[in-house]
């Protein structure tokens, strides 16, 4: 699916592909900095999900999961020296749909499902499906050198 179809708000000049398509990791692992993060599913563990987090599709569960890799909730998306931030998106029912991470220049980076990584202004991937809904919360942690 062409990006402009999935994300009508994307402005072509602002958005850049930064990787080839890759089905071996997804947005959650990409944002967490640990590719084994996939998605909480029931049953025997095929996907990694921190033992501290409930295996449910809620913002609280995702916040707990990201906390296991050092992220804590924060108030805003502003760029701060030495801090990396993630944004958690939810659909109209409040179910998590996506996570994006902030780059050192203030742009945001997303892994698009089984597709590629892109850089983009944060809000340009918001919108109704197949866009990612709206940003529900931000989290931050010290940026690793």
């Amino acid at each position, binding site marked *: 699916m062409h990006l402009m179809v999935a994300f009508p708000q994307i402005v072509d000049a602002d958005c850049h592909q930064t990787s080839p398509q890759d089905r071996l990791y997804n947005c959650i692992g990409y944002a967490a900095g640990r590719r084994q993060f*996939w998605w909480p599913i029931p049953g025997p563990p095929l996907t*990694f999900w921190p033992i501290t987090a409930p295996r449910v599709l809620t913002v609280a569960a995702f916040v707990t999961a990201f906390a296991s890799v050092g992220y804590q909730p924060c108030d805003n998306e502003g760029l701060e020296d030495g801090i990396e931030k993630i944004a958690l998106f939810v659909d109209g029912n409040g179910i998590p749909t996506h996570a994006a991470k902030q780059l050192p220049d203030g742009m945001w980076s997303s892994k698009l*499902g089984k597709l590629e990584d892109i850089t983009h202004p944060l809000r340009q991937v918001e919108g109704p499906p197949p866009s990612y809904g709206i940003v529900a919360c931000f989290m931050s942690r010290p940026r690793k050198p």
Partner: protein
Amino acid sequence: MPEVLISSTQSAIVAGVTTGHVRLLHFRTGGAISLMTGEDEADRDVSLHAPDTDDLAIRFGVLVKIWREETTTPSSSYIDIVMHWAYQRIIGMGAVAVPMILAELRREPDHWGWALEAITGDHPIPPEAAGDVEAIAAAWLAWGDAHGLL
């Protein structure tokens, strides 16, 4: 709804799928397959005729192709990937699909762990491999080798 009858060569079927909009698959005895185009999900159907081995391989190939194409989207949900209708139909093929899945897995690691577990009831994945698609593929290939399926 237009219908296209194609003699059963897998390349012809796959080529038809890549042109898009192939939604309805009838698998018939004797190798004849009809592909009907349409967007209505209710029109999707795979007949319940007992297929021969060639039909099974073609059915598997077509379903894999559709699953890959339709789950290569911006959606990141693992559930969207493994609950896709074509993936579910592969699970529905049962044990006969296992060698084909393993061969596919050997060719290219992908999210086949859910299907293999659903069909076989086994879970050969070490805890440290959870979420690592390539490690899960390796674990299932070792399982397949141990069971003489590769």
